[in-house]
């Protein structure tokens, strides 16, 4: 139901009806309808699905999520040390 990818907005054509723009995803470019993200600016990333931008990617939240998950490692290691050894899931990289 949900194949969506984050693409960078290269150009916005507000005079188009509906508002259209060009986005770039990993070097592939497509024309996308930007009507539902009226505050988007060039350089923002948008989540695109079947030719439409359905939300603007929040860069701060993205960084925050990664930071949060990276910190799990610190907390986890501290606990492991206290316990006397790690519990590592199968298949974890050495």
């Amino acid at each position: 139901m949900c194949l969506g990818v984050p693409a960078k907005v290269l150009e916005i054509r507000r005079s188009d009806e509906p508002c259209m723009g060009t986005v770039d995803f990993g070097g592939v470019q497509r024309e996308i309808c930007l009507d539902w993200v009226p505050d988007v600016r060039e350089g923002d990333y948008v989540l695109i699905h079947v030719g439409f931008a359905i939300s603007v990617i929040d860069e701060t939240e993205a960084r925050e999520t990664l930071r949060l998950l990276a910190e799990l490692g610190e907390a986890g290691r501290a606990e492991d040390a206290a316990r006397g050894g790690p519990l590592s899931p199968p298949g974890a990289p050495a």
Partner: protein
Amino acid sequence: MKHVTEFRDPRLVHTALSELHRVVTRPHVIMEVCGGQTHAIVRSGLDQLLPAGIELVHGPGCPVCVTPLATLDQALAIARRPEVIFTSYGDMLRVPGSDGDLFGVRAAGGDVRVVYSPLDAVEIARKNPDREVVFFAIGFETTAPANAMSVLMARRRGLRNYSLLVSQMCVPGAMRAILASPGNRVQAFLAAGHVCAVMGWREYVPIAAEYRVPIVVTGFEPLDLVHGILMAVRQLETGRAEVENAYPRAVSERGNEGAQGVVREVFQTGDHAWRGIGVIPDSGLYLREEWRAYDAATRFDVGHLQTAEPAICIAGEILQGRRRPTDCPAFGDPCTPDRPLGATMVSPEGACHAYHRYGRVREAIP
């Protein structure tokens, strides 16, 4: 690929998995609603790395799987008509109706075309004024705004030769139906991240409260999935039952109100039949009266067709998370992706198909 690659980082995935192993103390059953999430889990092998007590059950969020057989038969009947250019997302082309599939209709001379976006279908209508262009408008809330927009565009451009064959469904009703069914084992949900990008997550709050289930809005990359599972497990371990957002970079509480507005303008809610499950109240979208002229089922009068599902198929049980693909006596033989008996084997997002394609490895690993 920015905002994708970082969320596939194996080290971060394993950090999150370690934490998950650390916090789990008892078994939990979690349903991922979206077929795209099922696909991502099985494709990455993430389910193999979870703590033994965590059971992921696959939900009905696969529009290909749950589109009623009768609708498919309507699609085939319309596509066979010589004046019609039948346009569709690629997912639906291989789904068998009672008598053939869209691929077969094309082979027999029907004009069936795959499009990436409904706007492409509108463009085909514009370029072919002497033909009837029908777009197979399937999907959940993620896709509804795009499907609705195509009708708005057709009207704006004065196109009379464009119509939708609608099979739009909504997730919350299905979640309620699953939770309310006797024998339900689901204790928490990973809500579909892109549905929520459009709809926000407010509509899940009453569900979480009424049924006392954690609901975590979750994305699609391996790290997103582990993150969502971790948040759900933390709630389950501490007896909480709230809506949380593990995909905040793409999902806000209110969602995309512009997209929601387009849907409200064109569609209205109603009861809908889900293949394998039955009728779920308030779980479908239909064209409003003033847009009924764009309804292909009406325009082509393909009305109610007789349909029959193979009796052996347990797709309905699988879609509600009550049985697994490997429980089915027909799984793998005779039911395979090439010769599917039911909905969940047809679509790559269907649990049976995903298991068959990727999950056979369970017998393969000694």
